[in-house]
């Protein structure tokens, strides 16, 4: 199993991400502070200052410049990483598309945080959702262990020769980034071998073979470039699964495109991203103990979204609630709901769907929220009637 040298530790999500970065040892990192991601780069720069990594830092004057420097460094030809949250990601937005459109395998941890206004530093998914269609691969993580594991796999996925696309690893601000959990670290050598040497493609630093990056492409070819991008995205799922298989060999931990929990024979189910899945699973167990067939699906690869596979996994249920930790204002439903609905759509006898918006700006998601939702689903399953398609929960009226 190659599982020698594992270390059981009690660490925060940010600490785990920083440790993954130390073990991956990128050539260049760009960083700019923002709560709750700041801590990752503080820890990482202390590795730099103490010679634990070979990384050169670019301590930029904004996140816009952080992503711009990542683009330059990645095009130059080497492994590049960064981290951010919320407003920082929003400020990078313009360059996120340039990183993906230029096919640069930059890896970024996104410590999910609410977007202003009002200003709020706590965890929700509005930042990551705002960037879901920018051409990056997105992996979402329930806890510190998954954040660490996803970080390590993200480099392999992004740098895969069939892919060469940037990847974002999402984890919940504070709830995961700042809470201490028990988890396992792999040993340095194992991670190093798993990540492998960075392979360059048309590096800018190859003076003998000059290349031009960032052309102007108008009506003649722009659309072909975009379609090529879409085609690459369609290959990501397979690579994610292949990498997960290899990762299982070194870690013993299984990963897929999404996780299903007691879903096979379930009649009602929750779909939820990141940390809230943990709380929800406990409540699913309670319902099972009461003889109610509840289950859960937690997306991991959120972009590209595995519509077909998720549709297949949910089609036999009677009622499903999609829990969104972000709203898509004016769209009626939360972003995750819209994706799940598209996945379920081809299945004529698929589940009835409802949508709850929860946990915005770090508002607690409590077991009783999951209980109420599951009870409502049980009722829908029995009557076949949906009373409220979409509502906010855990909110003052």
């Amino acid at each position: 199993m190659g599982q020698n040298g594992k270390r059981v530790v009690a660490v925060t999500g940010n600490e785990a991400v920083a440790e993954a970065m130390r073990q991956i040892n990128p050539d260049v990192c760009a960083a700019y502070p923002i709560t709750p991601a700041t801590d990752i780069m503080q820890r990482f720069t202390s590795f730099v200052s103490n010679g634990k990594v070979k990384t050169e830092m670019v301590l930029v004057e904004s996140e816009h410049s952080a992503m711009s420097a990542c683009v330059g460094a990645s095009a130059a030809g080497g492994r590049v990483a960064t981290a951010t949250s919320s407003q920082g990601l929003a400020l990078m937005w313009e360059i996120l598309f340039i990183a993906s459109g230029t096919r640069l395998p930059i890896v970024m941890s996104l410590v999910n945080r609410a977007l202003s206004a009002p200003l709020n530093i706590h965890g929700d998914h509005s930042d990551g959702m705002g960037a879901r269609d920018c051409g990056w691969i997105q992996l979402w993580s329930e806890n510190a262990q998954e954040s660490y594991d996803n970080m390590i796999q993200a480099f392999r996925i992004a740098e895969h020769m069939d892919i060469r696309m940037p990847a974002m690893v999402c984890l919940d601000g504070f709830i995961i980034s700042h809470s201490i959990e028990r988890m396992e670290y792999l040993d340095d050598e194992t991670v190093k071998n798993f990540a492998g040497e960075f392979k360059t493609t048309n590096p800018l630093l190859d003076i003998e073979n000059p290349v031009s990056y960032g052309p102007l492409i108008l009506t003649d070819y722009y659309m072909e470039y975009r379609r090529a991008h879409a085609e690459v995205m369609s290959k990501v799922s397979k690579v994610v699964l292949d990498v997960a298989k290899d990762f299982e060999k070194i870690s013993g931990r299984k990963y897929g495109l999404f996780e299903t929990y007691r879903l096979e024979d379930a009649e009602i189910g929750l779909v939820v991203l990141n940390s809230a899945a943990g709380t929800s699973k406990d409540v699913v167990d309670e319902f099972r103990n009461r003889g109610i067939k509840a289950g859960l699906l937690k997306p991991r690869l959120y972009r590209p979204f595995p519509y077909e596979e998720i549709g297949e996994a949910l089609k036999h249920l009677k009622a499903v609630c999609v829990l969104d930790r972000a709203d898509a204002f004016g769209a009626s439903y939360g972003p995750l709901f819209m994706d799940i609905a598209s996945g379920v759509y081809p299945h004529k006898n698929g589940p009835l769907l409802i949508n709850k918006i929860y946990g915005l700006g770090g508002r607690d998601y409590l077991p009783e929220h999951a209980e109420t939702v599951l009870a409502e689903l049980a009722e829908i399953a029995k009557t076949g009637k949906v009373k409220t398609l979409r509502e906010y929960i855990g909110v003052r009226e």
Partner: protein
Amino acid sequence: MATPLSLKELSKKELLLTAGHRMCAGCGAPIVVKMALLAAEQPIIAANATGCLEVSTCISEYTAWKIPWIHNAFENAAATLSGVETMYRSLKKQGKIDKKIKFIAFGGDGGTYDIGFQSLSGAMERGHDMLYICYDNGAYMNTGIQRSSATPFGADTTTCPAGSCNPGKLQQRKDLTKIMAAHGIPYVAQASPSHWSDLVKKVKKALAIDGPKFMNVITPCNRGWRSKTDDAVKLSRLGVETCYWPLFEIENGATRVTVKPKEKKPLVDFLKPQGRFKHLFAPENEHLLKQAQDQVDAYWERLLKEEAFAARQE
């Protein structure tokens, strides 16, 4: 081997920006780029901000750049090149690369004075080994001649059009060259394509220094300046001779005027051939012409004082 600074020798060097790009006939920008690249003795990697130079030199399947070149966005040429240069240092430290490479960013005045100012300031403060060259044509030319903070006082642009209430741009240019000098970087200079040997010398000097350097180069745009197609060199020369665009350098804080006009021409000699200043010659705008001349005189006198001060320190 360093190329001796003679036109004959320079003309033997390969042009690293080829013909066939799509800049307007008579545009000053490709002249500036070619001169800068001719000056370089070392292999160069260039970054380019969005703007006329960028959109016209790398389109679809074609590139005019014979050196590695990267365009990222409008406001981030300096940040992008910081990334390239940092990767270079990282790989060099790891023994994965051994060549000596130098880095030049090219940005228009809009991409440098305005939207890219923060990115430039940050890159200079961090001390990357790069030369940032601003080709200053005094407006957002690529989007159709809108005002920038480099647009000269009184100029007619498409967003500060000269009309019956407003006589064109009401503000003086931002003094970016001095602002860059205030960053305490080792080398800052102003140059002009009319004075090729001064420009080439400055680029050579800048590239010989490790660390951040900044050059501001006046770059006529016949579309925006509404001047004759073949006047780019003549107009930039008039810019220098009227002291509108003094040629100087600030090396480790010490100012030196590198070209002093034998006879300081009146500013109107520079303004007259340009359609963007035509309205200033209407009788009711005489006071504006005087104001513009006063600004130039004050700047020139201050510059000479700064030079004298530096000379006394030696």
